[in-house]
């Protein structure tokens, strides 16, 4: 503690580097959180529409409805009659009101809108479920936004890639940086260590202050990075304005969860400890 203050310039420097490392990890963690969240949102809204034959009897329709409800793949099913479909269409394209009113018949078929449990549409169960439904009597067509499915899958992959690949590399990199910074500070005090050994200090006596320094620096760096991350997350959207619409979801950062924050600080402490410990070994000879 005493020494932390004595070498305050170097230590401010070290803590800054630790903080920057963790900040990078934190930003990507937060981005990963965000993408995970977006992917979830998208798959929650994934709807499969089963269009029915127009002349379907009520009984057949109910059979299909029951089958959908009972299927273990399905969370929610909603029947949309021809009239409801027309209403929805007019909501979307009000300028076509005139045309539609001129028509004598309703061109929209009735349908079931279904929300699936599985989030990944390409999974075998989902695929075979859709297949089996398509083959049922009375079902005319199945429609779902293929683009969005693929986009969602890519996003999910992106979240994992950023979270694990980049995050992993960056944590390794920051471990390297941190242990080197601490080695630097141990190195600067190698005379002191040498003299302590020569006047009869035990290894534990020599280690403890260095370990404490390392742990404190790691924790400080971790906490500082959380604080800076918080500022970045709060201030960044303010600066950009909020008119990005859907893109907003992608660019806005979500703050880390409590357990993630604690893990980050804990990782700081562990890295500080390991960094000090490993840096000391070579000086505790003779």
């Amino acid at each position, binding site marked *: 503690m005493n020494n932390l203050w*004595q070498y305050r310039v170097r230590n401010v420097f070290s803590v800054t580097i630790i903080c920057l490392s963790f900040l990078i990890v934190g930003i990507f963690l937060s981005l990963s959180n965000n993408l995970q969240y977006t992917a979830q949102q998208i798959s929650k809204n994934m709807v499969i529409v089963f269009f029915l034959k127009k002349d379907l009897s009520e009984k057949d329709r109910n059979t299909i409805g029951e089958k959908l409800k009972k299927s273990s793949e399905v969370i929610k099913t909603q029947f949309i009659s021809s009239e409801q479909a027309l209403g929805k269409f007019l909501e979307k394209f009000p300028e076509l009101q005139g045309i539609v009113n001129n028509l004598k018949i309703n061109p929209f078929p009735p349908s079931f809108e279904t929300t699936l449990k599985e989030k990944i549409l390409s999974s075998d169960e989902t695929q075979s479920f859709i297949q089996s439904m398509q083959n049922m009597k009375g079902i005319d067509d199945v429609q779902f936004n293929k683009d969005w499915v693929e986009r969602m899958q890519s996003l999910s992959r992106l979240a994992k890639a950023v979270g694990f690949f980049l995050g992993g590399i960056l944590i390794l990199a920051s471990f390297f940086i941190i242990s080197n910074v601490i080695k630097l500070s141990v190195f600067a005090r190698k*005379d002191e260590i040498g003299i302590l*050994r020569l*006047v*009869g*200090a*035990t290894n534990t006596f020599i280690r403890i202050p260095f370990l404490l320094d390392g742990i404190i620096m790691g924790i400080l760096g971790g906490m500082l990075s959380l604080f800076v991350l918080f500022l970045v997350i709060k201030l960044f959207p303010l600066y950009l304005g909020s008119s990005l619409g859907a893109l907003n979801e992608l660019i806005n950062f979500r703050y880390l969860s409590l357990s993630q924050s604690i893990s980050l600080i804990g990782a700081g402490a562990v890295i500080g400890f390991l960094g000090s410990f490993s840096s000391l070994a070579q000086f505790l*000879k*003779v």
Partner: protein
Amino acid sequence: MIELYHIWKQYQKPQWALSDITFRAERGDFCFITGPSGSGKTTLLKIIFREIFPTQGQIVINRRNILRVPDHKIYSLRRTMGIVFQDFRLLFHKRVFDNIAIVLQVLGIARKDIRRRVFNALRMVNLHHKMWEYPAHLSYGEQQRVAIARAVVNSPKIILADEPTGNLDPELAFEIMSLFKEINKKGATVIICTHDRELIRHFGHKIFFLYKGKLLRKETL
């Protein structure tokens, strides 16, 4: 009791810094090691407090073969020793007080006692008025005296002093030597490397003369 048996030391081929040194200092001896510059005096001392290892040979201190003591246990030997290094080895970012107190802190001595004992040690070398200075603000001779105070502060059983009066005026050198002699009289073994013939003549009890790594003469006055 310090016994060296057939010590050889080679830093770099082909020269031998020490060759076949056999030497014995009984408890309570007051020994001088002398010899020209580069003859191996410092090397010999470093081997005794095991900062470096001999290439060959055995060292027994108080019946322990210290070459067999592992690194992490060597502290118990060093705690019985007081060492004055030829290059002082003071910590420049710590005050004179802390430089000396460190020896007592390592032993786990109470804060109050530390204060008193450090002050006494500094008074012995005539430097108590510089207790709260940093070593960089001392003259070279004053730094040397801090190194001496640090070596004697824990009343060691063995004192190893490497050229402890090289930067001191003759009067002060004499005082320092008298201090060592006093500690010696209380039972400590003292080994001093020096070039100062005057001091050897006056205080010498056992005298070893090194020349190019060889022990040439042993005299007992």
